[in-house]
């Protein structure tokens, strides 16, 4: 069926397009304006903004840790107001309403990938992907000691991607979860894992190299050490330096934008971080914006969650150790009246606004850690409206606002910048050639927003949302559920790594390694998956 969206302001930074025009699509793909054929269906977009479908590169939408959050907090969900851990179906519905068409779950240990893939299979409307977590497994440390270390690690990483059907590689507080098992309670960039003697820095280097060797497009996606601690800007700056020019993605940078200025020894250091990111072109970041309200923190940074469990609100938590990272679930409420939370809120916005290049800063709340993804509409509105920011700031503790530069920042995101940050750039970062833009050949993942005075309302309910050319949401109402694809990489590797893995796993853990592999036939079959090519 040939479909046409007419008369909207079409913004596609990938091809320098920004102007009133039409978008045509057929059989799930964008097509050039046909000659001599009339559209079978036409949608009027006059006065509206037409973008590619949104892409969220870092949102916890699946996996046993998130599911623990669901089971931990049934009472919060009873009145329907808590979006920290929606059921799988709701995740798809809520994202689709906002005009998103791809969401990446960034923290799945290969040993729990099967469940994560089952959960992804239950999320309708959008495409999905996971990143596989490595960096705290004894097997990795074992390989780091081996003579053929570098190659073996690359094989191991490729094998982990294959077994878990993951798109890229995530590393979370490298070494810290292993150190916690030996009763460490703090772990920085140059601390070493007891028994093995490897520092966080060494693990990051090894994994950056491995990712490069596999050819996976998405760079190592790193959750640094010392998350959330005052003064941790030094950790983030040192980590940026440690990358030595190689590609590195730093996740939820806001949680590392803290200095120790001021009477409470807690301040925003976002300007320093933004400056470093502006300078180091190999670095990409997502923000992990904090928004106020009840949420639940869900993280494979088990050391951080272990240390933070007593700040839980409500007072309950689950700290679960596992092969590699494990995970912790700690409910938390960000309060407008809290000095620290207000600084966090402002620091996130400072990062968004002080990092010049919208292709290297990505739009996230680290759902649900900074806030549920359902707060995105408010966040978009804040980025695009200086006056609105001033109104929010006026409601915060002024001694906290004074610890930030936010009041002085005049920048307002433009539509092309929003499109770049949430469409064009994330598709490139993930190595997707047919998503995030509107040129012929792209998947017909399209979001149409109708401008209105309340920008948040506009973003909450896109006027029209197409996924693979099918209308899936209109003014906030979703259509009959349909399912997108799960994207993954499939780098080659030497099968010899399987033998080493098998021996290590069976002896150490009493479980054959192959038992952890995702069985495609149980999660929708091969049609359900889409391979994203590696660099050759």
């Amino acid at each position, binding site marked *: 069926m040939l479909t046409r969206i007419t008369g909207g302001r079409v913004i596609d930074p990938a091809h320098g397009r920004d102007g009133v025009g039409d978008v045509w699509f057929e059989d799930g793909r964008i097509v050039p304006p046909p000659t001599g054929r009339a559209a079978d269906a036409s949608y009027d977009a006059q006065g509206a903004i037409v973008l590619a479908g949104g892409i969220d590169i870092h949102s916890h939408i699946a996996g046993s840790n998130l599911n623990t959050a669901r089971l931990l907090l*049934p*009472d919060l969900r*009873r009145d329907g107001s808590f979006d920290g851990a929606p059921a799988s179906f709701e995740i798809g519905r809520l994202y689709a309403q906002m005009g998103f068409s791809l969401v990446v779950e960034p923290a799945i240990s290969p040993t729990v990938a099967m469940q994560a893939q089952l959960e992804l299979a239950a999320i309708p409307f959008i495409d999905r992907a996971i990143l596989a977590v490595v960096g705290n497994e004894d097997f990795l440390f074992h390989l780091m000691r081996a003579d053929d270390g570098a190659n073996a690690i690359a094989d191991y990483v490729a094998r982990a991607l294959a077994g878990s059907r993951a798109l890229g590689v995530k590393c979370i507080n490298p070494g810290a979860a292993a150190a916690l098992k030996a009763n460490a309670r703090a772990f920085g960039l140059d601390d070493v894992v007891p028994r093995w003697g490897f520092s966080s820095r060494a693990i990051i280097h090894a994994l950056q190299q491995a990712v490069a060797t596999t050819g996976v497009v998405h760079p190592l996606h790193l959750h640094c050490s010392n998350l959330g601690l005052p003064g941790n800007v030094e950790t983030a700056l040192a980590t940026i330096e440690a990358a030595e020019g190689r590609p590195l993605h730093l996740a939820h940078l806001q949680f590392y934008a803290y200095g120790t200025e001021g009477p409470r020894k807690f301040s925003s250091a976002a300007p320093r971080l933004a400056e470093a990111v502006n300078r180091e072109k190999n670095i990409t970041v997502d923000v992990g914006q904090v928004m106020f309200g009840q949420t639940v923190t869900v993280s494979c940074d088990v050391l951080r969650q272990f240390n933070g469990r007593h700040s839980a609100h*409500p007072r*309950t938590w689950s700290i679960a150790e596992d092969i590699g990272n494990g995970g912790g679930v700690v409910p938390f409420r960000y309060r407008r009246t809290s000095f620290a939370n207000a600084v966090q809120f402002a620091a996130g916005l400072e990062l968004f606004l002080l990092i010049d290049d919208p292709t290297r800063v990505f739009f996230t709340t680290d759902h649900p850690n900074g806030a549920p993804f359902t707060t995105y509409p408010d966040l978009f509105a804040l980025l695009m409206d200086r006056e609105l920011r001033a109104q929010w700031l006026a409601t915060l503790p002024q001694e906290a606002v004074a610890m930030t530069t936010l009041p002085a920042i005049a920048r307002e995101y433009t539509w092309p910048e929003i499109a770049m940050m949430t469409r064009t750039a994330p598709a490139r970062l993930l190595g997707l050639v047919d998503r995030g833009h509107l040129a012929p050949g792209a998947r017909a993942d399209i979001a149409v927003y109708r401008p209105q005075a309340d920008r948040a309302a506009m973003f909450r309910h896109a006027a029209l949302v197409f996924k693979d050319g099918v209308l899936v949401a209109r003014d906030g109402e979703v259509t009959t559920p349909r399912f997108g694809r799960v994207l993954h990489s499939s780098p080659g590797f030497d099968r010899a790594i399987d033998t080493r893995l098998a021996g290590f796993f069976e002896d150490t853990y009493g479980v054959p390694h192959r038992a952890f592999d995702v069985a495609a036939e149980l999660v929708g079959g091969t049609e359900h998956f889409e391979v994203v090519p590696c660099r050759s």
Partner: protein
Amino acid sequence: MGAVVLRLKAPPPWPLDLAALQPAALAGKSADEIARMTLGRVAVGDVFAVSAGDAAELVLQGGSPLLDCVGAGMQSGTLLVEGAVGALAAAGLRGGRLEVRGDAGDHLGGAAPDSRMGMSGGVVLVRGNAGARAGDRMRRGLLIVEGDAGPEAAGGMIAGTVAVCGAVGAAPGVLMRRGTLLLGTPAVAPPPGFIVGRLAGDGTFLRLLARALHAVSPRAGECVAAVQHRWLGDLAALGKGEILVTGGQAIPQHQRSG
């Protein structure tokens, strides 16, 4: 018009969850509207004869141990039951007043199903006996059982006051963090996890407590007047709770070294 009155017409067919029958929510509703409300598979009108009222006051005439969750989650108003109630009466109650002129089941004033916190305010008075785990995880408020209570009364209590004028079952106050459990039946030794403590010499607090309890239940007020012992625990938990006990022979003061 006054109170809304629901008269039990016949024993309920199976356990009914009455949490929806909140006094404040029923005030001003017509008898028809109330009768049409559903309790799972049955309508209120199938089980109760309804007479409407305009006050935040609800009277249940006739009781049954199959009436669960009576006054559960209540925030205001008064609810009087002229008979017995089942499990989870006053569970998660936050305000208002519930009086049961009969026995109550398990988890009286405890945590509502699917919740982690017991009652957090208000006043509950049970003229008869209560089942197991009365006042479980209670956070605030006053819960008085004029009869006996089952095992694990005031278990996991966070704060508040539970008074049991009659006997209690095993392990009263187990995992108690803070709060007061008043026992009207003389007991001789503290339960496990509790140590023998001291009453404050001036008795000022007991005077305040007696006055507050007496206003709700003279019998409970008299129990305070007869308090002779104070036990502290549960030392397995935070250990800042107290059990106040009337009469009986206390074991000797626990001797600490130094």
